[in-house]
Structure formats: structure tokens, C-alpha cells
């Protein structure tokens, strides 16, 4: 394995691992405080049990997220020292702010987890909200840093280095708002729906189980609206890409030729050598319409860019199809669930909905991983879009396959242990029927 590929693989693996814990760390505290609030208001002990269990899950996931995030902050330099040497002063600002947000999150999570008996119920709930808000802000700041890599602002690039830098302008990259919105919604949608799916499964067998019914209602409250809004936010992101990263858009859509009235391709396999995308279902003028709000608009194909500036087309296209396909399913299921909840129908009577929720459970995380593949692989061959190539940024350290394999094995073990622990500590269901709970 060439060193550049090993470094990219290690970074992708580390980010792909960390993102799951980071997302849960953003959204889980909201579920936990909603459950605690409901307990405080209604006195229903099941909500307290839920808050305890979710807090325990958050504790396990937050710890792994914290240490895997530390690994990433070092890996930026261990793998990409030249990138950091140039970009550090420009995008260090959001990382510094993220540091404080993460600090706040860690402090209040400690208070929340260990403070049930030590601080007042009000202070405890407030600590939970502080965790939720600072967790969200951590994510926002990190995504702002990534957005700059897609649309670098706040600098002039002269002779291979940045001059006249402006770190505030760098935080205002045109990519920042669409990416932050898309990722924040993703965290709530994926986490909410995975929890909903996990509790929908036992409800198929035991629809009267009060514990799972309450868990499902809180999880849908957080996850479903986010999943429903996500396609709109995705449209905003796609229009950003169309405008600022036309080569990425062409790869996402498998668009090789520059044309007016370009079709939207659903599925298909891009053949880079032949320069065409086969087996796709084509919706005439769909891409021009979606990307530029004009069915006759010209869409630049990959042919408009030098061959060495193409991202890997097939990976980006397939990842994009996966994200859009699964995301659409999540949005539909969420719309149905919200409709039934709004009409005050009993969700557990609709077995098809429970089945669809079980099916949707892992989809949010698959979508997120696929979405980051689109963002990151689609930015290749650049690490700073249009300015610095990834190959220029990599460390001169040889044998990078070794750390790649070591960290991959380490994370594989951690992943298995975390999954087992969550099953043990959080998911195993208590047996409380609705009548007993009353």
C-alpha cells in the first residue's frame, strides 16, 4: 500500500469511527434531558429509568468519542504536517473554540453523570442542557474547519503559501452554513432514528411494553423532524457544491459531458475509462433543475477538468446514491410517524411503521459515512480545494501502513466492546406493561 493511500485510509478510518461517537454525543444528551424533564413533570419512573440508561450510554460513547477525537487532533499533524503547517493559523480559530465547547461538555457531563445525588434536580437538568448545547457547538466548529477545506476563504495563495490571512473570514466560508446545517441535522436524525428503531423492534413482539413505548416517543421527537428536514438541507448543500466545486458535483452525478439540460441519474455505475455512466435511471433535465433551478442550465461535466484534477468518480457517485437513497427512506418513514403522532394515533398499532423504523435504524449512520465519503473523496485530489494537493500534505514518514493497521485493529476491538456494553447496559429491556406502570 503506498504511503499516501495508507495515510488517507488511516484518516478516513479514524474520522469514520469518531463521527459515530461524535454524533451520538451531540444528540443523545437531548434525548436524555427530554426524558429527565418528562420524569420531573409527570413523576413517571420509566422516564427516569430511560434518562439513567441513556446517560450511561452517553457516558460510554462520549469517552470513546473523546479519546478518538484526541487521536484525530494529533493525526492532523502525524499524517498531514504540511497541510497543518499552512492551514493551522487559518483554521485554528474554530478548533480553539471547539476546544472550549468540548471542555464545557466534558465538565457538565461529569456533573450530569455523577451528580444525580449531589446537585439539585434543577441544576442537574441544566447540566444536561449544557452538555447538549456545548456538544452541538463542538460539532459546529469542527465542521466549520472542514468547510474551509472545501471552499477556502480568508487568504491569498501566493507561491505555494498563504498570505494576508484572515481567520474570521475563513470561518465564513460559503461551505460553512450548508455543511454545518446538514451535519447537525444528521446527528439528530441518525441518533434519534437508531434509538427509535432499537425500541421499535421489541414493540413488534410486545406492543404494550411501557418502557419501549416511552423511549420510542422521545426518540422520534428528536429524530423524525431532523430526518424530514434533511433533504431540504441536502438541496442547499448540493447547490453549494454545484457552484463552488463543479468537479465534485460532476463526480457525484456521474456527469462526464458538459451539457445543457443535464439529466439526474439514479443509481448506475460510472466508467471512468469510457467516460460514461451506465445502467442509471435518468430523469431528463433533473440535474440542471435541482442544481441550478433551471431545467436548461449548463452542468459542467468531468471532461471540463484536467484528468489529474478528477476525484475518484465511482466511489463518489455510489456514496452519493447511497446517502440520497437511504436518506429519502428515513424522511418518508419520519413523515409517516410524525403524521400519525400529530393525529394522535397509536404508533404501535401500525406494525408496518414499526418494521420500517427497525429497517431505518442503521441508515442514518450509513448515510453520514457515505456523505462524508462524498465530501472528502469528492474533494480529492485536493486537501485545500484548488490550492494544495493531498499528495503535497502527507508526512515523509515511511511505512504508514503499520499505524493504519494498528489503529484499525484497536478501533475494531473498541467498536465490538462498545456494542456489547450498550447491549448489556442500555438496551436489555425491563418488563413493564403499560398497566403496571400506571
Amino acid at each position: 500500500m503506498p504511503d499516501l493511500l495508507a495515510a488517507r485510509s488511516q484518516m478516513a478510518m479514524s474520522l469514520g469511527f469518531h463521527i459515530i461517537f461524535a454524533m451520538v454525543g451531540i444528540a443523545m444528551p437531548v434525548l436524555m434531558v427530554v426524558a429527565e424533564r418528562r420524569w420531573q413533570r409527570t413523576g413517571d419512573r420509566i422516564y427516569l429509568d430511560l434518562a439513567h440508561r441513556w446517560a450511561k450510554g452517553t457516558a460510554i460513547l462520549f469517552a470513546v468519542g473523546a479519546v478518538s477525537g484526541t487521536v484525530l487532533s494529533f493525526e492532523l499533524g502525524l499524517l498531514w504536517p504540511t497541510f497543518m503547517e499552512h492551514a493551522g493559523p487559518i483554521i485554528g480559530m474554530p478548533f480553539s473554540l471547539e476546544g472550549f465547547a468540548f471542555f464545557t461538555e466534558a465538565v457538565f457531563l461529569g456533573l450530569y453523570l455523577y451528580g444525580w445525588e449531589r446537585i439539585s434536580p434543577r441544576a442537574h437538568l441544566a447540566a444536561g442542557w449544557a452538555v447538549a448545547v456545548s456538544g452541538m457547538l463542538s460539532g459546529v466548529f469542527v465542521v466549520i474547519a472542514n468547510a474551509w477545506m472545501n471552499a477556502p476563504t480568508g487568504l491569498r495563495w501566493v507561491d505555494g503559501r498563504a498570505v494576508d490571512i484572515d481567520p474570521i473570514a475563513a470561518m465564513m466560508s460559503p461551505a460553512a452554513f450548508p455543511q454545518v446545517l446538514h451535519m447537525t441535522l444528521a446527528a439528530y436524525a441518525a441518533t434519534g432514528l437508531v434509538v427509535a428503531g432499537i425500541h421499535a423492534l421489541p414493540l413488534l413482539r410486545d406492543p404494550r411494553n411501557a418502557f419501549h413505548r416511552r423511549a420510542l416517543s422521545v426518540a422520534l421527537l428528536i429524530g423524525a423532524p431532523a430526518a424530514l428536514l434533511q433533504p431540504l438541507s441536502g438541496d442547499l448543500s448540493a447547490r453549494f457544491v454545484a457552484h463552488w466545486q463543479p468537479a465534485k458535483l460532476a463526480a457525484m452525478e456521474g456527469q462526464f459531458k458538459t451539457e445543457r439540460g443535464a439529466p439526474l441519474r439514479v443509481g448506475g455505475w460510472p466508467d471512468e475509462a469510457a467516460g460514461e455512466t451506465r445502467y442509471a435511471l435518468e430523469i431528463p433535465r433533473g440535474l440542471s433543475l435541482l442544481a441550478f433551478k433551471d431545467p436548461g442550465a449548463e452542468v459542467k461535466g468531468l471532461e471540463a477538468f484536467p484528468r489529474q484534477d478528477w476525484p475518484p468518480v465511482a466511489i463518489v457517485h455510489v456514496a452519493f446514491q447511497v446517502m440520497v437513497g437511504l436518506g429519502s427512506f428515513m424522511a418518508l418513514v419520519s413523515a409517516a410517524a410524525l403524521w400519525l403522532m400529530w393525529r394522535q394515533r397509536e404508533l404501535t398499532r401500525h406494525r408496518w411503521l414499526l418494521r420500517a423504523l427497525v429497517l431505518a435504524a442503521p441508515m442514518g449512520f450509513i448515510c453520514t459515512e457515505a456523505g462524508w465519503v462524498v465530501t472528502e473523496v469528492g474533494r480529492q485530489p485536493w486537501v485545500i480545494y484548488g490550492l494544495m494537493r493531498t499528495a503535497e500534505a502527507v508526512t515523509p514518514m515511511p511505512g504508514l501502513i503499520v499505524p493504519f493497521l494498528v489503529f484499525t485493529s484497536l478501533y475494531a476491538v473498541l467498536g465490538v466492546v462498545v456494542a456489547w456494553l450498550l447491549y448489556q447496559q442500555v438496551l436489555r429491556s425491563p418488563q413493564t406493561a403499560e398497566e403496571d406502570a400506571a
Partner: protein
Amino acid sequence: MTAGLGPAELVAGCALVALTAYVLLGGADFGGGVWDLLASGPRKGRQRALVAEAIGPIWEANHVWLIIVVVLLFTCFPAAFARLAVTLHIPLSLMLIGIVLRGAAFTFRSHYGAGHGEAGDAGAGTTERWGRVFAIASAGTPVLLGLCVGALAAGALPVPGRAAFHATFVAPWLTPFGLGVGLLTLALFAFLAAVYLTVEARDDDLREDFRRRALGAAAAVFVAAFGTLGLALLGAPLMGRGLTTAPWAPALHAATGAAAVTAIWALWRRRYRLARVAAAGQVSLILWGWALAQYPYLIPPDLTIRAAAAPRITLVLVLWALAAGALVLFPSLIYLLRVFKREPARP
């Protein structure tokens, strides 16, 4: 040195403060793991329980100080960060594995068995195994951190790309002086943890256990500190010279010595709160001695704080961000420590 203090020096000072906080707080959490590893005698289980109780609510917050140091380094001194990350790739990667295993294993241990899932005998065995991982990672990570600091302090980090693999990626950190600093770091962390635990123990037997451990660790610090100074004179002449001949050296050594003697005397007389203050002072002074000895260099012998610094606009913005962040952070941290580190009621 005549250039005076600019934003670069201020940020470097903030990074040193953050590093000091990491050593005093996060370091003690690693030291706690060392005492978990070395738990012995009739109160073995209770020693481990005290360590877990002391670390549980705060280790993640304490850990963030390290991230602050890293972020300050890559934002404000990117040239230094890049060179450290390239030449110390191997020990930093090993240290990260230690950090991951320590944090993850501690959390896994805390959540196995206890709580909703009745894990039974299998659960107890697993808890013990994660406890071992936590303890061993806690003992190994400080040594690796010390190795990296030692390589930096020795002024041995090459400019990458000019030498062979061994000379660039191994030789700078795998030295007797580096190992000395590694062991000194381990001894300091264990010393801090034992001293803190004398304050946090709730009964006299346990307090005596950690008093003896603190005194033992103080002896280990003494040996490691003088051993490292000797190795510095042999293998890290810049550091050795700074620590022995600089005009501030006698005053610094006198202050460090006074703090060390106070800590030992206070432990001997069972004045634990005084011992805690003195021990923290002693460790901080050792850290600052290193910083002073290599000032104005960030990476001796050729990269100064000024030369490595980011453009002024970045430094100024980061200083503002630090000020704003501190306004949120310090009240929160004080609240956290007040809730969990309140004086145990005297019997």
C-alpha cells in the same frame, strides 16, 4: 531574549499554563492508574475503588487540557507542530494508543457489571481485565509523553527529509536522557496522585496507605530528577547548561527544593492539604524549569517561539478566544471540582 514579550510569547505562556494544568490534573489521573496497578495489601480493593472514585467524574475534563495544548501549538506555532508531528510520529502514535486504551478501559470497567445488566461471574472477570488494561496504559502513557518531551528538550529533533529513517524517526527520542525524562514523568504523576489521594481518602487506613505511597513516590522523583539532570549534562547539553549555569537556575532549584522538602515534611506530619499544595508547586516548578531552560526556543536549538509563530492576526484572535473561553471554563471547572472534591467530613 531582548525582544520582550509579544503575542507569540503570550500564547506560548498560555500553552505552558495549559500544559501545567494537564500535568497537575490529567497527570494525577494517570498516576491514579499507576496506584491501581500497584494496589496491594489488605485494602487492595478499596485502594482501587478510591482511585476510580477520584478519577471518574473529572478525567475527561482534565484530559481536554492536552487538546488545548495541541490546538494552540498547531494554530499559533504551526512550523513547530509540523516538525514535532513528523519526527515524533512513532512515540506520539504509541502515546495515543495509551490514551485511547486508558480512557476506554476505564469507562468499560466502570460500566461492566454495575447497573442494569446482571453480568455475573463473567462480568466480574471482564471488569478485572479492563482494570488491568486501564492500569497498564496509565503507567505506560506518561513514559511515552516524557520520551517526547525529552527529545524536544535535548534539542535533537532534526529537520525532516535530510537524514535516514533511523536518524530522523527513532534516534531523536530513543535516548537515555529521553528515558530518564519518561521515568521522571511517571514518578511525578504517581507522586501527585498519591498526595491528592491522601486528601480524598475517607478513612485513616486508606489515607495511611497513600501517605506511604506518596513518600515512596517522592523518593522516586528525587532519584529520577537527579538522574535525569545527570543524563542531561551528558546527553542534552543545552538543557543541562540551562539548568545549571543560567542566572535564574539557583533561585529555581532553591524554590523547587523548598517545595519538595515542604511536601515531604507535610506528608510526614500528616498535613495533607499543605502537602497537596507543595507537591503541585514542586511539579509546576520542574515543568517551568524545563520551559525556562529552553526559552526562547520552542524547538531547540534552532526554532524560536518568534520564528515558529503564526501571523499576528491569528495570535491576537486566539488570545481573545482564550480570554473568552476562560470566562466560561473556569467557573464551570471550579463548580465541577467543588461538587466532587469537597472536603470529606471529618469523623
